[in-house]
């Protein structure tokens, strides 16, 4: 009886229970699963002329869009209002809308978020927020502060609405795109005219050992413009900083140079250290020809055949050239041994050591110490001589085998002839006996 009354009450108050159910369970769900924010800006701007539609197209793959941001997060206004084409409602200054920033306002505009770690860490807890600070110290930033509206700002490199992560190969600042991106301005003589700086950097860089690795061999670890000049703080390294900049990767050479007798004189004469011999954007891979005082020599820029440095440079050249020639002989012999099908593993294995010693000898040149070079090349020469002997022994063994084969063939021929004569004789004897 009691349960029957209860059922009747539930049915009578069903509407109230239903509303309560919705309120308790579904209302919080709206907050737990927020709906996608509506972006009316894209809807309207995609109908306009080309100038307005291009941002909407580019923005599709923009990192800000893929991170869930709307146009209004940068430009303000109300993208969710159903303005029905009334731009005054959507782009209402009262709702925070600001017209697109001018060229010189862009760095500060981007920095509103990109310098705010509290905000940026939501997207990446390890993100850097010092780009704007660095930019202000850059040559670009300094000129921009003086009112120059031609210098690069954020969008010059990152694009305006098609910004991608630097690790995205489609990004204009992806490792192997950087030289082209910088050269958009820096290789344009007309654009760069008033700055009175060279415009052949890209041309030189493409010929450099760094350019060869990055652009031809696709080695993304090879340095591009930003690795020497900095990213947002881009500036030419001062003469006194060159060894530090190159030393970031070439620390061994840097240490040798710093301890060398040359450091003092380079400082005294204001020579740009590494770049004095390797040049800056061309970054030449120097060879033995660069030593000594010949036409191709870099030592010859300062030294003559008569001065002490020149005499040492010539001796260095001779020592390394002799070792290098011996190494090449070993290489040719080892290839010949391999071509003739003789055992070559041990020779090839030892060639690794010879090659290592040659590289060390070339590297120790940065100490400009004849003693050091002699020490390394002596060890290498001993190794190379033993490799040469091994290769020559194998080639001798090959000759012995060839002669052995010739002798063996001769005896086979002789045995065949004897067999023929024997058969002929037996045949002859049989014919006589048959008579």
């Amino acid at each position, binding site marked *: 009886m009691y349960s029957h009354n209860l059922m009747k009450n539930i049915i009578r108050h069903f509407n109230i229970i239903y509303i309560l159910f919705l309120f308790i369970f579904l209302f919080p769900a709206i907050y737990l699963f927020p709906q996608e924010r509506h972006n009316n800006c894209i809807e309207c701007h995609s109908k306009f002329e080309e100038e307005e539609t291009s941002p909407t197209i580019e923005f599709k793959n923009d990192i800000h869009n893929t991170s869930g941001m709307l146009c209004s997060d940068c430009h303000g206004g109300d993208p969710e209002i159903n303005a029905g084409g009334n731009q005054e409602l959507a782009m209402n200054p009262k709702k925070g809308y600001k017209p697109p920033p001018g060229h010189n306002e862009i760095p500060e505009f981007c920095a509103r978020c990109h310098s705010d770690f509290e905000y940026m860490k939501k997207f990446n807890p390890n993100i850097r927020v010092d780009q704007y600070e660095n930019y202000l110290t850059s040559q670009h930033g300094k000129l921009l502060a003086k009112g120059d509206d031609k210098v690069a700002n954020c969008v010059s490199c990152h694009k305006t609405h098609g910004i991608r992560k630097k690790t995205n190969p489609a990004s204009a600042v992806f490792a192997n795109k950087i030289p082209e991106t910088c050269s958009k301005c820096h290789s344009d003589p007309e654009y760069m005219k008033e700055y009175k700086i060279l415009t052949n950097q890209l041309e030189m860089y493409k010929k450099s050992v760094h350019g060869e*690795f990055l652009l031809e061999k696709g080695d993304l*670890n*090879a340095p591009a413009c930003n690795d020497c000049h900095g990213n947002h703080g881009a500036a030419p390294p001062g003469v006194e900083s060159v060894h530090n900049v190159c030393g970031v990767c*070439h620390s061994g050479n840097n240490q040798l140079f710093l301890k060398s007798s040359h450091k003092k004189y380079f400082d005294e004469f204001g020579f740009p250290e590494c770049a004095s011999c390797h040049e800056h954007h061309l970054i030449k891979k120097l060879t033995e020809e660069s030593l000594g005082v010949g036409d191709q020599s870099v030592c010859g820029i300062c030294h003559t055949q008569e001065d002490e440095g020149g005499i040492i440079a010539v001796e260095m050249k001779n020592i390394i050239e002799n070792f290098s020639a011996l190494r090449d002989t070993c290489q040719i012999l080892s290839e010949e041994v391999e071509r003739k099908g003789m055992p070559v*593993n041990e020779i090839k294995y030892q060639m*690794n050591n010879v090659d290592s010693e040659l*590289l060390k000898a070339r*590297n120790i040149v940065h100490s400009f110490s004849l003693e050091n070079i002699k020490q390394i090349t002596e060890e290498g020469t001993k190794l190379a001589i033993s490799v040469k002997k091994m290769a020559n022994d194998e080639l001798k063994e090959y000759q012995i085998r060839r002669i052995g084969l010739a002798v063996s063939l001769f005896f086979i021929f*002789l045995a065949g002839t004897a067999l023929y004569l024997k058969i002929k*004789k037996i045949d002859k004897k049989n014919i006589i006996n048959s008579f």
Partner: protein
Amino acid sequence: MEERNTSRKSFINYLLGGGFTLVAASFLYPIVRFVLPPKSTEAEPMAVSAGKVGEMHLNSGKIFKFGRKPGLLIYTEQGEYQAFMATCTHLDCIVQFRNDSESIWCACHNGYYDLNGNNISGPPPRPLERLNVFIKDDDIMVSKIT
């Protein structure tokens, strides 16, 4: 006349016997060479012995021959074996273990790798090629990772 015939007959017999002996020798020689093992293996090895268990101290390394290339075996402070191809990924110099910095070092251009073979400083652009290490009887065997 009879004597001349006998001498000719015996000459042919000697020639025949000698010839066959040498032919047999030329056949046997390569067989013997085949049966006896060569001084070194020529083919790319699948696995080599890089050393004996117990011969290395903790926090030490040694270079071993892996076919035509050098390999580096490291016995870490934690008592683990790690092996890599010992050619630097910069310009193919031979790298070595540094127990002072517990790292792998290339003397040519001062490149450093950590004990997992990752390039950590200097010019090396890539990690070292890692090799597989396993113990078989008393041997520390090293093979390519396939």
